[in-house]
């Protein structure tokens, strides 16, 4: 307990405290000067406003897209619903900056779709720009709508069918039932999903970095990146504190909604499947429309990434003669990429192992041993969940990049940051895994005469193993492709895969970036399949 507490204190609490503390410090004296700076320079407070409106717009679009798709995929007689659903969820298994890269390949100047539109309509230039606010909101929506989709689809499925049947028996027609019964009942889920999308968009770095910085359109996360490059720690920490504040407010709102939702418990865990809406003559037209949407947001970006990886050079005419495997060969021989792959594998494996170990200890103390104070520990360990990763990276620089313990420029500082980022995920999976092991199974072992270690070794860990392995992969996979933390903490020799892909893309070597990204994509989709197999489809995307 003490060891786990010390770990959480050093990895989570102390660094985050440093961020808050430093934001009120100017030349060693407490002051509000950093905050004054934010509000006196238009470029900084505009970043705050940009963050808020971009996230709001994204959330609104996610709500519309996610709710419509969720309804069509759960409650109608659309053909191939399961396949559609799997494909819709697929892009979320890939990192958001991959999405940004893929959409630049598709819609950017010389993009595949852009070239198609120019050819078909004979425009001189395409009537849109992927760089800037519009492009950012578009890619954020395509990436985060799935959060609304999953929560709403879940609520629609868990809804008691008899509530709708009772309305029908009372004489309500289909559209009346939808408006007066179904929609009000899933409204909390829609709002919760929308807030999740808001938080995701707010904390995202990769998409506004690749699509916004070039157009000089800054949001909070990219401004923090910029402030660190100056470097101006006062400014960076003040912006960070504001970012965390907005995220926390949103989360508080979401908790409130969840509470309200559980108060009327009409959405129960019953297995009665609600009736399907017959689409009749609309069935195939709608199916074609949805399939087009799925192809557009799930299939095209992946195809585009692979296609780019196979191109002789970016922007080459599409012909068989211009296809080659040399990019893959180059990536595999390229020293920086090799090092990055090794670094990411190391960081992923070590952070997954340590996070799962500490997570298991915390969960056992909290869920099984029910020790006093373990609830607080559990809460502290899940704090980073609410903190955007940019802020976590800054926290690590403040806490662990100065004497006496200077880890800056080493892999260790990235590892510590990864641990803070992924500890909440580990604690959550171990909590739910251990909760599934019924208390009486451990009590029976006690009554059989088993002390703590035999109980863990013979009963609890074997029963929790599938969940533990799934949890390990759930940390390993996102760590393998991590960008936000590594881009702020890397130095020469400690690049990660995310950093190399980002830098290659930024420097214009798009086919090389695409080749490396394609390799990672393959690994991620494979890992995701393994998790779904292991957990029977409960975990994974």
């Amino acid at each position, binding site marked *: 307990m003490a060891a786990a507490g010390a770990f959480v204190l050093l990895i989570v609490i102390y660094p985050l405290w440093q961020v808050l503390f430093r934001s009120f410090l100017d030349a060693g004296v407490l002051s509000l000067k950093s905050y004054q700076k934010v509000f006196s320079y238009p470029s900084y407070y505009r970043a705050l406003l940009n963050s808020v409106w971009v996230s709001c717009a994204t959330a609104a679009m996610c709500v519309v897209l996610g709710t419509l798709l969720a309804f069509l995929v759960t409650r109608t007689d659309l053909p191939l619903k399961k396949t559609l659903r799997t494909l819709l969820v697929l892009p979320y298994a890939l990192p958001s900056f991959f999405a940004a890269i893929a959409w630049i390949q598709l819609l950017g100047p010389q993009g595949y779709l852009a070239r198609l539109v120019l050819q078909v309509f004979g425009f001189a230039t395409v009537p849109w720009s992927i760089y800037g606010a519009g492009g950012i909101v578009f890619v954020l929506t395509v990436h985060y709508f799935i959060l609304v989709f999953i929560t709403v689809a879940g609520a629609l499925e868990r809804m008691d069918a008899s509530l709708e049947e009772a309305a029908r028996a009372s004489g309500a027609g289909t559209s009346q039932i939808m408006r007066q019964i179904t929609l009000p009942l899933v409204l909390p889920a829609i709002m919760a999903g929308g807030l999740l999308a808001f938080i995701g968009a707010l904390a995202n770095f990769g998409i506004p970095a690749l699509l916004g910085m070039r157009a000089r359109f800054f949001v909070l996360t990219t401004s923090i990146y910029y402030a660190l490059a100056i470097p101006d720690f006062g400014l960076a920490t003040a912006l960070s504190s504001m970012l965390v504040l907005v995220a926390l407010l949103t989360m508080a709102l979401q908790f409130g909604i969840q509470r309200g939702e559980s108060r009327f418990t009409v959405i129960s865990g019953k297995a009665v499947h609600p009736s399907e809406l017959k689409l009749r003559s609309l069935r195939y037209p709608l199916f074609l429309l949805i399939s087009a949407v799925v192809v557009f947001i799930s299939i095209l970006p992946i195809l585009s990434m692979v296609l780019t990886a196979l191109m002789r050079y970016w922007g080459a005419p599409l012909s068989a003669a211009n296809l080659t495997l040399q990019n893959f060969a180059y990536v595999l021989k390229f020293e920086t990429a090799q090092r990055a792959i090794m670094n990411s594998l190391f960081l992923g494996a070590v952070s997954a192992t340590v996070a799962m170990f500490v997570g298991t200890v915390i969960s056992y103390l909290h869920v099984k041993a029910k020790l006093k104070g373990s609830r607080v520990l559990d809460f502290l360990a899940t704090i980073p969940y609410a903190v955007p990763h940019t802020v976590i990276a800054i926290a690590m620089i403040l806490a662990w990049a100065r004497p006496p313990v200077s880890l800056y420029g080493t892999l260790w500082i990235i590892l510590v940051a990864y641990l803070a980022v992924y500890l909440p995920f580990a604690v959550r999976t171990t909590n739910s895994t251990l909760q599934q092991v019924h208390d009486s199974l451990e009590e029976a072992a006690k*009554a059989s005469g088993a002390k703590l270690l035999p109980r863990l070794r013979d009963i609890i860990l074997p029963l929790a193993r599938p969940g533990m392995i799934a949890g390990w992969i759930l940390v390993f996979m996102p760590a393998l492709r991590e960008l936000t933390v590594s881009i702020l903490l890397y130095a020469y020799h400690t690049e990660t895969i995310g950093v190399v892909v980002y830098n290659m893309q930024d420097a214009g070597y798009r086919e090389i970036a695409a080749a490396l990204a394609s390799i990672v994509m393959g690994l991620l989709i494979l890992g995701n399949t393994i998790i779904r197999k292991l957990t029977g489809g409960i975990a994974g995307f």
Partner: protein
Amino acid sequence: MEKIRIINLSKRYGKVVAADAVTFSVGDKEFFSLLGPSGCGKSTVLRCVAGLEEPTEGEIYIGRTRMNSTADRISVPTEFRPIGMVFQNYAIWPHMTVHGNVAYPLKLKKLAQDLIESKVKSALHTVGLERLADRYPSQLSGGEQQRVALARALIKEPEVLLLDEPLSNLDAKLREQMRFELKDLQRRTGIPILYVTHDQAEALAMSDRLAVMNVGRIVQVGTPTDIYTRPVDRFVADFIGLMNFVPGRIISREGESATVEFFSGHRLSVADRSDLGGECLVAMRPEDISLSPTGPIRCRVEVRSYAGHLVDYKIRADGAVLRVQTAKTEIYQEGEEVGFAVERAMLFAARES
């Protein structure tokens, strides 16, 4: 000699009192039940004996050894207590075979392999599972899982066996069969059993003695006959078996019998040692009421339901509705006007304090 002794045991969760000054003991070779409605604290008491809960106050002895004493800050961990325990959901480890489950307590004791084998074999024989030793729990029926749990609890030869509603997850037929098997097993092994149940029929059928609990307190301890025929208060009378209550008035007392007036002037002499007087409640078991065309108290048959071995009636007399059970040979029609006589009754205070 007493095998389990519980002295003044209390357990509080914040302001909620789960067990309140509970005191009782279980003798050698005794089958002792804790009986009560759900939430009465019976499982809490059992879990305190097992060491799975810490008492807020009180002492617990198993054999001669003190397991808990809040005064002396003694609390022996579960794994060091000489107990075997069967859980409501059996708690069979799903990743181990039947053999693995039953052998586990002996493996922890680091016994020699061949000794373990022979003991497991005889334990599986005792519960009739020797052919299923290599099965996994998911391949077993509820009754078979129950037997695995029993074998696992018995194999380390504990001083006492603790059973927490072990039959409540079985279907009615199997439950009756297991009652006999449990009783038989206890006779053969002679192990004292502390048994927790909310099913009064189960407790009456199996126990040598039982304690009836209500809101954390023990209301009555006694043999099944004691408790069925001489319940100490209205709660026990109502909870154990079926009971009809009608208002009455005690008009005279003579030694250990009282004359009570009920059903508009009808009088009955009742064996009663209490000091009740005036208004009271008259309690009658359904089998202590006999129907006949010429019975002294007039009534009307409201509902008749045929239960195979007997006939169950609801009759209305003087505004009260009574349950009556008669032999299956006596059949009256619904709506028929008949009479009844009360053969035995008990008296309780009109208002519970």
